[in-house]
């Protein structure tokens, strides 16, 4: 798994490439929580480059989603690929967080 972080408008975009499994999910959780600790509470997680995600990845997203909302922000998803989209739907995540088909849509959803 590789990650990159950039500021886009008033939003922090965390882009992930590769696999998010039990081996790598802890690293992702730490990265997201560090951003929230630094007051970057409006987060977009760009999943466009994620070819595999397990329940460990969902745990990282859930932990960070709860933390960002606790601090008045939100965590939104962008560009999940079909396999990842399926686990988001199966787990009911699509009813508790916002997911957009493109990164631009996810960033724009926060407004300016």
């Amino acid at each position, binding site marked *: 798994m590789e990650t990159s972080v950039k500021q886009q408008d008033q939003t922090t975009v965390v882009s992930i490439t590769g696999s998010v499994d*039990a*081996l790598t999910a802890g690293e992702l959780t730490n990265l997201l929580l560090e951003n929230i600790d630094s007051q970057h509470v409006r987060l977009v997680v760009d999943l466009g480059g994620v070819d595999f995600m*397990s*329940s460990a990845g969902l745990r990282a997203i*859930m932990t960070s989603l709860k933390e960002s909302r606790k601090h008045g922000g939100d965590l939104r998803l962008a560009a999940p690929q079909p396999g990842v989209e399926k686990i988001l739907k199966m*787990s009911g995540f699509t009813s508790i967080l916002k997911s957009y088909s493109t990164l631009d849509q996810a960033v724009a959803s926060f407004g300016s």
Partner: protein
Amino acid sequence: MNSMRQITRAAELQSLPLFRDFIKAACKGRADIDDQTCYDLQLAVDEACTNIITHGYAGMNPGSIILALELGRSQVVVNLTDFGHPFEPSRAPMPDVEAGLEDRPIGGFGLFFIYQTMDEIRYQTTEDGNCLTFIKLLSSSERA
């Protein structure tokens, strides 16, 4: 046209991508196994192996996991064998996928995904180890 493949790897998290790559390589040679079916197989094996690594071998010396794939005409049979503590998957609680954010636990989706993506699941403990078997029907329609 059944084809059998098997690998044995250490029961450690670093082995997870190796098991997934093994499944992907096996599926690649079969035009009738689509990307979603391959993902489902990778997901079920990944979740089961994660449970074996983090719970099955807890408190024990690190052991191994044997993954055997049998790719038939109408189904894929996956056998996972380990030598850790037995774990009966059907006794585990399932998460409430309709719960709101506040009521929702952080984890608990691993076994749920296995039950959602596989068509049949069997578990057997013998003196030769614990064997978890999944069957994925190739003609089954997506249920999730």
